């Protein structure tokens, strides 16, 4: 949200009401249910006992949860570190116009439109050393690659799969930001004799800031709740190597049907994401402001 030239208008609330109703129905009501579960021991639908914070305490001391959380952080940060730079590079290297630009966009966006379980399946096939291209190639290159047996291989496969799957989102958003830069800017830069890097740093990057912020947030949030793809690809194994938070939660909620602990865990999970996104959101706002200042000084 740009801050400067907005008028104060409390009636704007009326325009926001439809959104609030929609989201309240699909988010607030279920979230309240989860809160309700988290403080009760549900033995059967008719028999419930209020247990206070007991579930929260037991969940917080769960060492498996700590391990899953740690894996999740490593994974999410790896995803951001790889996908954001590649995405920016991708946005910059896409042709600006013409049929080639259209063709590239369509090809690149393809992986985004594949249902998540199919993504898992594709890589499951692709990585197998008997029937998959990647597995067979690595095998013939002499690499002892086996994503079902080796934890590191499994983890790397999930990471590469995620990069393959989601980098185009960053690229597309960045590209949309680039397209909004008027030619005049480039002409002015050329007259000033600005280097390619200067153009990137002072024209393209600031203009992409908004969309990149969306991209970073989206990628962080989505990688933090990754479930379907690793579930299909590795089933969380070998051992617990690729069991991320959502998978651990689903195991608890559906597998063992521990509603109380699962609900308590959900709330903690939600709060962690909330915290990180809040920090990230504010940090990017600050970065944005300081870059605007820099520009004004020059």
């Amino acid at each position, binding site marked *: *949200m740009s801050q400067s*030239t*907005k008028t*104060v*208008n409390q*009636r*704007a*609330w009326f*325009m*926001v009401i*439809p*959104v609030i109703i*929609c*989201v309240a*129905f*699909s988010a607030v*009501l279920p979230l309240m*249910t*989860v809160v309700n*579960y988290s403080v009760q021991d549900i033995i059967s639908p008719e028999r419930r006992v209020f247990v206070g914070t007991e579930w929260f305490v037991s969940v917080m001391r769960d060492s498996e949860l700590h391990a899953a959380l740690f894996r999740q952080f490593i994974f999410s940060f790896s995803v951001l570190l790889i996908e954001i730079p590649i995405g920016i590079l991708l946005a910059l*290297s*896409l042709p600006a*116009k013409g049929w080639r630009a*259209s063709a590239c966009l*369509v090809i690149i*966006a*393809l992986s985004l*439109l*594949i*249902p*998540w*379980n*199919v993504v898992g*399946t*594709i*890589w499951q096939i*692709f990585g197998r050393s*008997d029937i998959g*291209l990647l597995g067979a190639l690595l095998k013939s290159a002499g690499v002892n690659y086996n994503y079902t047996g080796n934890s590191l291989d499994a983890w790397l496969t999930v990471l590469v799969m995620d990069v*393959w799957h989601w980098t185009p989102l960053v690229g597309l958003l960045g*590209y949309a930001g680039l*397209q*909004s830069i*008027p030619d005049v800017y480039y002409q002015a830069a050329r007259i000033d004799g600005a280097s390619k890097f200067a153009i990137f740093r002072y024209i393209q990057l600031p203009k992409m800031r908004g*969309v990149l912020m*969306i991209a970073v947030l989206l990628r962080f*949030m989505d990688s*933090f*709740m990754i479930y*379907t793809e690793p579930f299909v690809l590795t089933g969380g194994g070998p051992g617990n190597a690729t069991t991320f*938070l959502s998978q651990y*939660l*689903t195991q608890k*909620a559906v597998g063992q049907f521990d*509603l109380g602990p699962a609900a308590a865990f*959900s709330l903690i*999970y*939600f709060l962690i994401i909330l915290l990180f996104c*809040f920090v990230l*959101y504010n940090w990017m706002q600050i970065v944005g402001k300081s870059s605007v200042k820099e520009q004004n000084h020059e």
Partner: protein
Amino acid sequence: MNEKRFQKRSIFLLVYIIFSLLPIYWMINMSFKTNEEILSQFSFFPQNFTFANYLTIFTDESWYSGYINSMIYVAINVLISITVALPAAYAFSRYTFLGDKHLFFWLLTNRMTPPAVFLLPFFELYSTVGLMDTHIAVALAHLLFNVPLAVWILEGFMSGIPKEIDETAYIDGYSFPQFFVNIFLPLIKAGIGVTAFFCFMFSWVELLLARTLTSVNAKPIVATMTRTVSASGMDWATLAAAGVLTIVPGAIVIWFVRNYIAKGFAMGRV
């Protein structure tokens, strides 16, 4: 210098496209093979080219109805998302009001919530109101992440339109609804296209909620596909063919959106 740079970028793009297409190519390759061939020999092109897998999907109602169901709930979802998000995004991009920043951030938190958390509550909620196994149930459930996303993207596009345009229109005697429909919407139609694309995308690929909230009448294709796992071994070939077919509607949609993205935000050009 310029030439070199250009080439470097082209090479990067080419490498990326190959990386991006290889797994898909492999799936397409497999969809034209028989199961026996997939498991017995390794080849870059099908040796015994067959359409049998696609025929299975097009003739078996339990397969093709999955595609129809998915398209229905995705369309409903996109329509609702954009309709409710348009005025809200306009409010966020033009006005300051009490609690606007908090509200904006709150919307975002709903996109962050892992769907796994809401599985059970959704199930109970929709059972209570009698919406289970309908297209509307899935469409409504997917609003959870699509409405915030739509507001976000649209707000970004709208902020790019100078405020002077609104003011000029009011001076010219346009009422707000007239201005919004006749002037503002055409200006951000690129944004609407991109938003529709993203809403479509996230609704189309979601599995967990869509599978939980449906059983027979509105069963989506992503859920239908999971049944190949339980059969005697994996039915790789049919699964690959179904996978290829799930990409087709998306590929068509992105082909339309490509122009909107390419046209850009129309910022600075107005």
